[in-house]
């Protein structure tokens, strides 16, 4: 529940019969929402222009008939969280087409209120960035530093064990370990750059080669779980990742074809696509030149189907 001083405006554009209205009614104390019909989109634009902190949640299906207005809305309010009812591939298409969208939730199945609320909070409150806010009531959480690439094997073993404690679903530990493996590999090989030339240091090294990271290059791995989610966060000290690079990479993979898995480079260029498909939520936090933190959230459930039906979401948070 937001404190009084954390209140912000949330405008929800929706059709009258939208399921999201039900969601809002179930969480009245958490979301200070003003539900309005899409016919009032111009009044929301006016409000957002006047109030820099306004956050708008926009069902994507309204884009088709109100495209002009909603594009204008997104231009003046980069904090907009867009809701859609599509699969992850279509979500990537949407993010590729509309580069002003930073936050997209696919709510074809069920929506995790905590993670939507946290996303909304983070758009207006930088202090909510980081690993810890993801877990409402943590049952277990770990933080470790990765200083050399051989560390990765033991870390993955520990993550698998932790994930096995978090869920009775036998496939979940492997899924979570795969996500961690990809995030660590990306951070180790793609993030560190030469302080003078700004060129990446390890990107052309074979992925089975030992890498000893310098003191300024260490990677931070955090993971843990609560009743509802398993969360993995990998941070580097470089802040070189951009929304454009991420979406370009995901979009190439969505297209399929021979270039889906790169063969000419040392990295396959498919890791984030794998993570975006395996995780329910992929959040990228970027403080340019200082820090990148990539967070993957997996919903815990006894049944595979509940994990499959959980929301999928991709979000970008940029400092400054």
């Amino acid at each position: 529940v937001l404190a009084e001083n954390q209140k912000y405006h949330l405008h929800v554009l929706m059709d009258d019969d939208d399921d999201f209205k039900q969601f809002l009614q179930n969480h009245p104390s958490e979301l200070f929402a003003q539900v309005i019909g899409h016919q009032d989109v111009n009044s929301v634009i006016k409000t957002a222009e006047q109030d820099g902190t306004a956050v708008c949640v926009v069902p994507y299906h309204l884009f088709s008939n109100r495209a002009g207005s909603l594009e204008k809305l997104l231009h003046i309010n980069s904090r907009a969280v867009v809701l859609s009812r599509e699969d992850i591939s279509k979500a990537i298409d949407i993010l590729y087409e509309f580069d002003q969208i930073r936050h997209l939730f696919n709510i074809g199945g069920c929506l995790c209120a905590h993670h939507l609320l946290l996303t909304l909070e983070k758009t207006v409150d930088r202090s909510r960035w980081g690993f810890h806010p993801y877990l409402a009531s943590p049952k277990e959480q770990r933080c470790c530093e990765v200083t050399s690439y051989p560390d990765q094997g033991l870390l993955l073993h520990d993550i698998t064990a932790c994930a096995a404690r978090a869920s009775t679903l036998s496939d979940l530990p492997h899924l979570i370990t795969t996500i961690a493996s990809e995030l660590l590999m990306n951070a180790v090989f793609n993030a560190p750059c030469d302080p003078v030339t700004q060129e990446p240091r390890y990107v052309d090294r074979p992925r089975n080669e030992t890498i000893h990271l310098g003191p300024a290059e260490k990677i931070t791995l955090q993971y843990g779980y609560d009743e509802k989610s398993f969360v993995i966060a990998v941070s580097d000290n470089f802040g070189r990742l951009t929304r454009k690079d991420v979406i370009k990479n995901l979009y190439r993979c969505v297209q399929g074809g021979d270039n889906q898995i790169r063969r000419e480079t040392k990295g396959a260029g498919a890791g984030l696509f794998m993570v975006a498909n395996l995780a329910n939520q992929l959040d990228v936090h970027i403080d340019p030149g200082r820090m990148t933190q990539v967070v993957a959230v997996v919903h815990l459930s006894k049944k595979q189907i509940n994990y499959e039906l959980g929301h999928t979401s991709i979000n970008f948070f940029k400092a400054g």
Partner: protein
Amino acid sequence: MNMESSFKVHQTKSGSDSLVRLSGHIDENADYTKISLTGIISITFDMEGISLINSSGLQRWISFIESIPENIKIYLSRCSTRVVNQVNLFPGFLGGKDIGIISFAAPYYCQNCDCAVNVIVETLTDFKNMDAITPPQRRCEKCHGKLDFDGLPKKYFLFLNRKKQPAA
């Protein structure tokens, strides 16, 4: 190599047919050089023991599959759910070849026992009508009650729509 690989290969031959059991992680350390392709016309990879496939592993796997001579027919059997998910996500997993997927694990749930279970299903016998792919019916080994398919059929069986059934 930065660490001892968890990837294991166990190959047996019967005449011109070869069975290769793979287990562990298909990752950046997966090494296929121990697999002999000499004198065989078919090779079946038993994928049940594969516990992780990452993107570097995928890159190495595809290079290996592509390196297998065209005159050798390739089959995958007992594909774990991890393998099925990767085949669905990355059609290139099959190296652009007409690889027969003989059998694979599918996720089910027993309401009576309140537990998830992976069941091996046979492509040829369980999916006779490829125009209308539905999860095969299965019963729980413990309580003999009906198992529910525990996934999204359209998503999980996507690879079947892309492929022909393996030759009998």
